[in-house]
């Protein structure tokens, strides 16, 4: 559905260089710390910036060959940009009807009612959570095949977040759809995404299926002596701790079977990010 082949973007203090792919019927997550390049990658996909190298392919077509018609198949929600705050939902509906032939007005208005989004209030007067929900609803309102969501759950409380995530799961039930989502809140992604790209300082450091990440990756907590005597072949990162080291492994099964005396834990995406960012490369 979407392919980034070795795209490059040079800024004075930063360079983005990455490749990623969002297959059909897949929810792909792009995670990383602030300033890692997530927004830059999204901007490149949406044509907001020009790339210095590499190719972007959407729906099987090269980026420059995309027609406005093709672009109606994309639904976007950006975390720091949206419709002018001086507009109301009632104002936006006719705008979207004109721009997107498949805009489903009844469904959209129904969803707005469901989430208590007043049709006659200026968007500026919405709370952060309501603005976030509105952005996601807008992205999903016109039968888009590809959703590009930049931090869609930021500013939402736990209940609202789960509602939005469930909306996304429901969205995936019909048709051939894909989602590219970036988020800081990793726990959301664990219950939603199919695969994960971890980006740091403009480079993709990790790409795994979420199943592999949760099932095979693990954190080992070892003392100094244990570290020196153990098999280090399946370790990816090492971090100094008070008790010794915490280690990130991509094959915790190996250690579970061969060194069961070690403290081995499942790891969450958050912990993987921490270790990949702060840990020493092995």
């Amino acid at each position, binding site marked *: 559905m979407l392919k980034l082949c070795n795209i490059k973007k040079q800024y004075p203090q930063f360079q983005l260089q990455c490749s990623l792919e969002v297959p059909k019927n*897949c929810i792909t997550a792009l995670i990383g710390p602030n300033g890692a390049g997530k927004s830059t990658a999204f901007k490149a996909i949406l044509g907001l910036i020009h790339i210095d190298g590499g190719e972007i392919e959407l729906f099987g077509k090269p980026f420059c060959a995309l027609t406005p018609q093709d672009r109606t198949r994309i639904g976007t929600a950006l975390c720091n940009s949206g419709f002018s705050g001086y507009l109301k939902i009632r104002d936006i509906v006719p705008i979207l009807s004109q721009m997107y032939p498949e805009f489903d007005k009844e469904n959209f208005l129904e969803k707005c009612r469901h989430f208590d989004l007043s049709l006659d209030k200026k968007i500026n007067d919405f709370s952060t959570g309501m603005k976030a929900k509105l952005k996601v609803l807008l992205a999903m309102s016109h039968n888009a095949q590809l959703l590009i969501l930049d931090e869609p759950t930021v500013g939402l409380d736990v209940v609202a977040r789960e509602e939005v995530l*469930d909306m996304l799961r429901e969205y995936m*039930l019909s048709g051939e759809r894909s989602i590219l989502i970036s988020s800081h809140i990793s726990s959301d992604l664990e219950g939603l995404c*199919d*695969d994960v790209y971890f980006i740091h300082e403009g480079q993709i450091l990790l790409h795994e*299926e*979420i*199943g592999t990440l*949760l099932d095979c990756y693990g954190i080992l907590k070892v003392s100094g002596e244990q570290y020196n005597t153990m098999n280090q072949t399946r370790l990816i990162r090492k971090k100094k701790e008070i008790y010794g080291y915490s280690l990130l492994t991509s094959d915790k099964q190996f250690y579970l079977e061969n060194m069961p005396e070690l403290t*081995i834990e499942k790891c969450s995406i958050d912990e993987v990010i921490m270790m990949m960012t702060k840990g020493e490369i092995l």
Partner: protein
Amino acid sequence: MKLIINHSSMLPIYEQISGQIKDKIIHGELIEGAALPSVRILARELRVSALTVKKSYDILEQEGFISTIHGKGSFVTSANQERLAEEKKREVESELEHAISKGRSCGMTDQEIKELFHIIMEEL
């Protein structure tokens, strides 16, 4: 489908899913020909990745418990008594492995474990 996933368990999620579905088939909760929910629907219910569900369905298909018809979905295949028995044997095997490794790890010798095994067998 009523499946319970333990996210804190060391057992991979796809194994938990396939294991629980297998159990249901073996114990007759899922009868022959019963339709399994689609991958995405189950993924949504369990709040896990669709690829994980697909993996467990693939395993079940490989082991002959279900068959997938493209475009229609996945269905429970006819009960194969031999296979069910094999499955039960496998369960016993893994439980014995678990017990033996536990014994070893708390310092019992192989001789002691064997003796204990015979004692219990006679008692039962």
